């Protein structure tokens, strides 16, 4: 109970402390979008007879005819009341767009991260146990390759190999087969929703749809995770308590997994936090290649079109996610190493 209370207190404090940062992000993005050359009204006023009048009308509808300070105050008021404006690119309210697309991005990033961890931890451990060996070099080679190949190249290669040539992967567009019925929208995570309604065939279809993009993302973030596991584990393996554990005749497995790994996890957790936040925002290319309806490709389209509202909404969302991810990582620190307590 006391632990839960302390966690709750920590969460509350963190959220309050993050509010100024979020406000700063909002104001900064707001101003940045308006400083960028490129006027959404002129860009979208592309009707076959678009004249100055149409541009003015669009500007009025977007509220861009008002002075910038007034626009900012209105925007802050909108955020406070839960509105983020309307996207011209999709014609939908930004909140609805983001709510629909965030689960897609989260599902992809989480699966990618899980895959990456499942590969990176064993690889990192194997490399750390035999530094300089063939295994170590092999791991280094795989990691370097993963980092070097840009995600859109590896994505297209995977599509070409598994979809075009072999024909084993489903068509690489979106989260679900285009002719299939989507599950009811309960959580927005297809894998969970399909399980909830007990549609196993649907679950399998959604999972196979997810596999290629998740592998693409996992390959890209494999390197930092595996390298960090290796470095941190090597440092721990050289410390006194490991020597003691070995000297009292504990099994290798127990020494490495129970004692060394747990102590080596802190830096890995830090990297996991960073990697995950980056994956959420920077998986634009993967989303584009696989037509994944996520927030990254949404924000990029909006940015190219100078569509203010979605870009601002996206940045705010990512900032909020960063706060949540950092908080989660901090809590995980406490679990991994009870000596650490971050107030």
């Amino acid at each position, binding site marked *: 109970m006391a632990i839960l209370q302390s966690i709750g207190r920590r969460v509350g404090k963190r959220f309050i402390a993050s509010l100024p940062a979020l406000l700063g992000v909002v104001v900064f993005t707001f101003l940045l979008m308006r400083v960028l050359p490129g006027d959404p009204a002129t860009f979208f006023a592309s009707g*076959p007879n678009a004249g100055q009048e149409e541009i003015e009308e*669009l500007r009025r509808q977007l509220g861009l005819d008002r002075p910038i300070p007034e626009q900012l105050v209105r925007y802050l008021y909108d955020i406070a009341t839960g509105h983020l404006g309307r996207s011209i690119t999709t*014609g939908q309210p930004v909140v609805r767009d983001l709510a629909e697309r965030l689960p897609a991005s989260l599902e992809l990033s989480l699966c990618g991260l899980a895959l990456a961890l499942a590969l990176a931890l064993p690889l990192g451990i194997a490399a750390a146990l035999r530094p300089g060996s063939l295994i170590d070099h092999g791991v280094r080679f795989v990691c370097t390759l993963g980092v070097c190949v840009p995600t859109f190249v590896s994505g297209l290669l995977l599509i070409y190999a598994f979809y075009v040539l072999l024909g084993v992967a489903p068509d690489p567009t*979106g989260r679900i087969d285009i002719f299939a019925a989507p599950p009811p*929208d309960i959580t927005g995570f297809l894998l969970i929703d399909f399980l909830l309604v007990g549609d196993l065939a649907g679950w399998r279809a959604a999972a196979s749809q997810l596999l290629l993009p998740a592998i693409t993302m996992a390959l890209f973030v494999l390197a930092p995770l595996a390298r960090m596991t290796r470095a941190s584990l090597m440092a721990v393996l050289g410390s006194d308590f490991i020597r003691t554990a070995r000297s009292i005749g504990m099994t290798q497995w127990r020494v490495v997994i129970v004692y060394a790994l747990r102590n080596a996890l802190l830096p890995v957790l830090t990297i996991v936090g960073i990697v995950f936040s980056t994956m959420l925002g920077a998986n634009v290319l993967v989303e*584009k290649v696989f*037509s994944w309806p996520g927030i990254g490709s949404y924000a990029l389209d909006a940015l190219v079109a100078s569509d203010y509202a979605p870009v601002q909404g996206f940045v705010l969302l990512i900032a909020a996610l960063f706060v949540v991810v950092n908080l989660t990582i901090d809590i995980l620190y406490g679990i991994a190493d009870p000596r650490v307590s971050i107030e």
Partner: protein
Amino acid sequence: MGLTRRQGLKAVLGSAVGGAISAALPGTANAQSRAETLRQVMGGTINTLDATTPGATREAFGAGMAIYDRLASFGRKQVDGVWTFDFDTIRGELADKIDRSADGRTFTFHLRQGAVWHDGTPVTAADVKWSLDRAVSAKSLSAAQMGTGSLTKPDQFRIVGDHAVEVTLDKPDRLALANLCTALAPMINSTLAKKNATAEDPWAQAWLKENTAAGGAYMIESHRPGQQTVLKRHDAWKGGADGKVPFFRRVIVQTVPEAATRANLLERGDADLSIDLQASDISALQGRGKIKLVAIPQTNGFTGIVFNTRMAPFDNAKVRQAIAAALPYDDMYKAALFGRGRTLFGADWSEAPSTAFPQKLPLRTDLARAKALLAEAGMANGFSTSFAFAAGAAAAAEPAAALIKEALAKIGVEVAIQKMPDAQMTTMEVERRLPFFIESGTAWLPAPDYFIRTYFSGDQRWNFSGYKNPELDSLVQAARFETDPAKYEAACKRMITIVAQEVPTLMLWQPNQDAVMAPTVDGFTYWFHRQVDYRDLRRA
């Protein structure tokens, strides 16, 4: 439109039932429905279901054509083995008979008997009147478009019977009827729309962005902007040229942002149609022989090099002519388009031989002449300038820009190349701050006077070069109301000659519309809006 939990459950139940049926009849049911389903993949987004919404994307115009009917429609014709729209034949769509008075000032539209909206209620003259009033009164894209056909105020539209509406013009505008065929003159179920109108929004513009009140060949089954839109056939539709419903029962229009993925889908046969693939992918696909390519020059469009005629040194016609004589047209065409299109350069005339526009213009490379002209303009030593293109057009514009830079260096003109994000480029264009750039345009109504009025006169954004010529301006204004064919022809030839001599814009070529489709898909037609009209298509 998001799926609610209830709809989703229905869908699951539906698919379970459907699954049971198809299990009972192995294979047949699914194969049948796939054959009658068209899946188009595209890079863009349908951002509104009402094509008249300010800010509507081109894809939204295409969807609007399928969902809504108009009073009339252009015909289609086969030229060199491919179908294109025929601007010169106009047939009724929602109207089955159109009477035109002798003075050309009154049109009477007799509505098709038995025509119904998607909700099954009959189409009335009051609906048509409301739709036309909306087109000229609401703050939308329509008003400006309708204005080009002298349709400007509601009292021009009169109900003259249960099924007849009369349109009156002050002057016999040549393009009044053609304007009623465009995507910006949709006929709307006014009873339904009015139910969803509000005091601030009397024309239900907000509601119609996400909902439809239509009677066209297709209705919306589901719409997720930026992802996919599914259309299903309106089986009571009678507006087609032959009165039959279109072949495809279902059309899935899916946004697939990555061009290479679109190409893969077509190669595997999972998608049926795409009109926005990359040139390099198209030739690879063609080489493997699994798809059908229908390449149609975009006859109502052009790509051109624009001079800002309101900015020195391009305000001097001699400078523009000098540059026109210095460019390597043929090389540019091959490098930029790989020859996939129709050229607009290389003609040899001083007076326009015909009224067709765009037509081949007397643009040819002649370095000696270029140098002489530059000297005449007092710039024998050349000058420096910048040449801009939009990042979105880079595939064709980048190689062309490099050749332009190289060629102009030979006459002492130094060019700095600027590649700009699309939104920045349009903003700078509209503010007329770019001296020299490459742009493309299409005119929905390919009448020569309309084309020149749109692209070479006035202050609207499509007059890219900001060109002003009193003679041309008075010609375009007179031509639109000219009823004497001989006089109209003479005026058009004169306008084309002026454009060819003064070169505010060097019209280079008309790129192809490359429609890549499954070999079984037939009937693809090039339309003025440059989108797919699903009503034309069938599976052989």
